[in-house]
């Protein structure tokens, strides 16, 4: 059973967000990478892109399928995990750590509170799976 970091918040579409001082690190959950299987491509936005909550950030493609990633929060991309372009398989190994996707300077109000906590997400994927 996966352990989901307590200080992250989670979406029903299996993204996570970790907010620290107005900057949110965004990624996909361990459940998401396991569902996708061997990941071969990661497409991410450019630095400076303005994202709205619920809109597409990019996509993750595995041997089996391609899947869109949605932004859990509204904000501007200030950093992109460039390393994933050459080592997409990192997403299978460390989705909650080294294989984060983008960092956003958050502009939305309190959106983070509407996301699920670790225990709520755990329950959600338990019920779905």
């Amino acid at each position: 059973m996966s352990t989901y970091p307590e200080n992250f918040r989670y979406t029903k579409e299996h993204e996570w967000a970790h907010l620290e001082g107005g900057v949110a690190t965004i990624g996909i959950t361990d459940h998401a990478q396991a569902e996708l299987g061997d990941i071969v491509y990661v497409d991410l936005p450019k630095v400076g892109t303005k994202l709205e909550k619920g809109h597409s950030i990019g996509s993750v493609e595995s041997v089996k399928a391609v899947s869109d990633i949605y932004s859990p929060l509204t904000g501007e991309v200030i950093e992109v995990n460039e390393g994933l372009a050459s080592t997409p398989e990192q997403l299978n190994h460390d989705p909650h750590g080294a294989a984060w996707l983008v960092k956003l300077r958050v502009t939305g109000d309190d959106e983070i509170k509407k996301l699920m906590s670790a225990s709520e997400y755990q329950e959600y994927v338990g019920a779905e799976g």
Partner: protein
Amino acid sequence: MDTSILRRTPLNDVHRALGARMVDFGGWDMPVQYSGVVDEHHAVRKSVGLFDVSHMGEIEIVGPEAGALVDRITTNWAAKLKIGQAHYSGLLYEHGGFVDDILVHKVADDFFFICVNASNQDKDYAHMRAFNRFDAKVNFVSDAYAQLAIQGPNGLATLQKLTPVELSAIKYYWFTEGSVCGTKARIARTGYTGEGGFEIYIPPADAAWIWSEILEAGREFGIKPCGLGARNTLRLESKMALYGHEIHASITPLEADLNWIVKFDKGDFVGSTALRQQKETGIKRKLVGFEMLGRGIGRDGYEVQIEGTPAGWVTSGSPSPTLNKNIGLCYLPVEKAVAGQPIQVMVRNQPVDAKVVDTPFYKRPK
């Protein structure tokens, strides 16, 4: 997902206990992967993998005119089969499109055993019966069999530990009535991976423990349980058709580049009139292999363009773990269906360069 309505093989609990990821595959609750598609794919190419393919259907045709009925409803020439021999064949509608693609095994002069696709088995059975004007009976026997596939270069050594049958004496696309783990089994040297190996038909009640025995026998070779994900990448590299993708009711064997299973010389069969006509006028579209040149994967259903004009569609596409390229199959106008032809695959509305290549993508070393 409500899994209660899905059909299950006798190994459903075994897959779940192994931690397989399960998917709805044509109404069946099937394992798509255990350790991972790429890992399982390499296990089959380099050593040995074990697949549960018990969802596949089985139909027997028996009686004095069994052979005549088989030759009436299939494209390949069943009368040419020797007892103990099998071949790949097509089951067609009168208009020449596929009802299904099948494996025909000649068990005796009056007994043919046919392995069919899981999601087509009911319509196959109805179709076969509808054309039965012969002294023969069509029996639906799917519930009498579980089917396991032991595939890869170490498949023979693995299975040999569990059977007194001299497996090396069974030639490719031949089979024998024997036993595995002391249980009656039909052992066929067939497969859907492009690798050597065997498919065994066994009683469903014995499937779970025989599965475990095979995994144990293959342990020294690093055997892996394999799911439908690897089965798909393996068959794609070998350009084996998948019903619903490369072939379906609107596709003929001539278009699908399966002329080798159409034996016009045997006389009339269901679909032969349409196929003869199509052969005479010439096919308009043809199945070809392609390789992506740009970054992207051409997936099933994606449009194919040539110089900005829609030209065809992708039937299957995936990264090829063996070749480390992104490959696929697509239909193209026959005049463009030649190796080297530049094409563009529309990957999420963006044209990505690709080219037609010779197939199969992978051929096992002899």
